[in-house]
């Protein structure tokens, strides 16, 4: 089905264009122009019609830049709304580099959501990976450089799985089209692609990059990152891998694993990071169970999650901005001094916990009820237990130990919080409440609903969902939610002395990544060093003989021949070392952006020459 959407209506264009324009705009004006691409994107998403457009032929491959259907629209809608909120939250920043990175990052997200083929998807996927790495590095501390480096390496690995899968699939099928995969007939390349997607969805045990890097990003960078990387991954999983049983189990493991670590964690932003793993777990499980109801639940939960998680990262970001730390052991009694930050945090905290009247309730319960109706009782119970842990750790523990547990030291200096940050949080909180009170606003965008053709033939029970849409506000659902949350609260009161945070880091899979990296380095650098020693020895002998013979030709031969061939190895090894030094000093960002630009340049050149 083709549509009339012009490529000029593509939201990625606004964000990527804005990113390139940032250096040219005077700083004073930039502040007010910053939300413009998001406003344009909102208008575009609300007015676009279903169907595909933006076709191109690239060396014999059919590319589709702009596929619009119910599934891509619901993600694009919340991407645009959260884009506006995050940009308002970042208005006070004078760091142009950071604005460029966040705009390019959001643009990459839109590019992925509307991509109709794997090549387009891969390119925007990598734009997101590089731009988000910049958001970690923009924090400009040794810690963020290291965390960003680990983050980038791991995403590169995930990107390579994806690329490998895409190319093998193209070799086998001769098509790049990005369409649903039959769960009973998946080929090895489908599994590679799935693995690449799972890295970005933070599926345990591929998740550790997330709680490792997000707490080291800038205050505003973390707000952007909380929304786009993992939810883009949820979108592509829903698009291609609905009904894959392994995702159903992996999702529930994520739900519980994230909650377990969050309960032990001290750094407030790392607690929130682990809760992304946990909440994305509901979505991955919904995709894996693969009924129309659980997929609707996954999409609704992605929408709600982006709003409340953004608000959580904004309000905890305010604590970090004002007090200079996000560690619970160093915070304590801030409610008297930052009461509005507390209230806004509380709105997000009850939303993520699934409190009735807030948006988490209308989306989380849909996923869980969908799992139960698909007779996956154990998966549903696992998700309920994760809901208990969510309220315990992020709804109660975090705010209690940040705002109430101790008497605040009145001598603590608090940096004033800019008004735009409060405005952004206010919009986020209002939307959490509005979508919670009027779930029909959210349900009207779900991918399986009356009048919309199902995007995948592998999703079960579509007719049932159209016949009996989920109703969140029934007496029993309300009572059940209040019982679970209320008695979790009682459990917290009983255990609050045990839950006191400790200043420690809890070892997670990132430790294995680091070990793996060291092993890789050792395996490769030792043989390299050995080869270099031998070559240098050979060169010394040959070079000496050349000098002693003092023949003109052999001198030429030595300079031009041996120097380039033999010493070239040494030079290249040396430059490899220099490259490593550059990486270590944090200049990898220059290298990474250059690589992306060069890649895009080559891509454009091939297209021009071949068409």
């Amino acid at each position: 089905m083709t549509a009339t959407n012009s490529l000029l209506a593509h939201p990625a264009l606004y964000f990527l264009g804005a990113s390139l324009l940032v250096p040219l705009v005077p700083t004073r004006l930039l502040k007010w122009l910053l939300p413009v691409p998001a406003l344009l994107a909102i208008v575009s998403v609300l007015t676009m019609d279903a169907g595909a457009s933006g076709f191109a032929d690239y060396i014999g491959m059919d590319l589709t830049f702009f596929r619009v259907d119910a599934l891509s629209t619901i993600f694009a809608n919340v991407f645009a709304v959260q884009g506006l909120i995050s940009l308002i939250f970042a208005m006070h920043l004078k760091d142009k580099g950071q604005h460029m990175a966040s705009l390019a990052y959001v643009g990459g997200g839109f590019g992925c959501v509307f991509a109709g083929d794997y090549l387009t998807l891969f390119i925007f996927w990598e734009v997101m990976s590089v731009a988000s790495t910049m958001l970690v590095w923009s924090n400009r501390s040794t810690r963020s450089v290291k965390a960003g480096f680990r983050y980038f390496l791991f995403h590169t690995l995930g990107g390579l799985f994806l690329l490998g899968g895409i190319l093998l699939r193209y070799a086998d099928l001769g098509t790049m089209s990005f369409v649903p995969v039959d769960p009973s007939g998946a080929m090895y390349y489908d599994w590679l692609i799935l693995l690449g997607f799972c890295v970005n969805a933070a599926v345990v045990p591929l998740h550790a990059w997330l709680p490792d890097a997000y707490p080291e990003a800038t205050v505003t960078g973390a707000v952007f990152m909380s929304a786009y990387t993992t939810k883009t991954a949820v979108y592509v999983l829903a698009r291609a891998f609905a009904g894959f049983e392994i995702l159903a189990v992996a999702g529930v493991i994520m739900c519980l694993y994230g909650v377990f670590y969050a309960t032990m964690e001290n750094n407030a932003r790392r607690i929130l990071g682990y809760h992304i793993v946990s909440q994305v777990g509901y979505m991955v499980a919904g995709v894996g169970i693969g009924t129309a109801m659980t997929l609707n639940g996954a999409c609704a939960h992605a929408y709600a999650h982006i709003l409340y998680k953004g608000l959580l990262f904004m309000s905890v970001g305010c604590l970090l901005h004002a007090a200079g730390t996000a560690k619970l052991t160093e915070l304590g009694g801030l409610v008297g001094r930052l009461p509005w930050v507390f209230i806004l945090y509380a709105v997000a905290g009850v939303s993520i916990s699934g409190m009735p009247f807030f948006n988490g309730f209308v989306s989380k319960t849909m996923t869980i009820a969908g799992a139960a109706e698909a007779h996956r009782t154990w998966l549903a119970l696992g998700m309920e237990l994760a809901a208990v842990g969510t309220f315990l750790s992020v709804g109660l523990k975090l705010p209690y130990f940040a705002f109430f547990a101790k008497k605040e030291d009145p001598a603590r200096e608090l940096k004033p919080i800019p008004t735009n940050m409060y405005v952004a949080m206010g919009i986020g909180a209002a939307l959490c409440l509005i979508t919670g009170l009027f779930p029909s606003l959210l349900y009207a965008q779900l991918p399986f609903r009356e009048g919309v053709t199902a995007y995948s033939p592998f999703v079960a029970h579509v007719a049932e969902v159209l016949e009996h849409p989920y109703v969140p506000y029934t007496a029993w659902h309300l009572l059940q939610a209040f019982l679970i949350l209320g008695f979790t609260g009682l459990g917290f009161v009983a255990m609050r002395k045990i839950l006191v945070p400790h200043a420690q880091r809890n070892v997670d899979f990132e430790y294995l990544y680091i070990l793996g990296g060291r092993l890789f380095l050792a395996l490769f650098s030792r043989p390299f060093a050995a080869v270099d020693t031998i070559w240098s020895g050979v060169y010394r002998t040959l070079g000496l003989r050349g000098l002693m013979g003092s023949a003109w030709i052999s001198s030429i031969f030595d300079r031009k021949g041996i120097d380039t061939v033999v010493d070239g190895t040494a030079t290249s090894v040396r430059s490899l070392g220099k490259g490593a030094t550059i990486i270590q000093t944090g200049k990898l960002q220059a290298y990474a952006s250059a690589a992306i630009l060069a890649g895009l340049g080559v891509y454009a050149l091939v297209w021009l020459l071949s068409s």
Partner: protein
Amino acid sequence: METGMKNRLGQWFEGQRYKAVHWFWGFVVVLAVLLMANMFLLPHHPHFAAEHWPGFWALFGFVGAVVLAFVLKKIVAPMLAMEEDCYDRD
């Protein structure tokens, strides 16, 4: 942005510290009401047998929270503990 209204709100929150006992007993009353309601209101289509016992989800929430807190903080956390800045050193 230390406006008057904000300070008053902050002071109100600070004042609630001294009324924690009142808040606690108010909370207990709410929980009791919820449990009473659960005697009469049960799901029409329980997904498993236990859901039909009054108080099942209350027990699930309370025991879940207590067990999670105890096992994770007292048993698991000491096993996983590293120094907070362990990755900052070279």
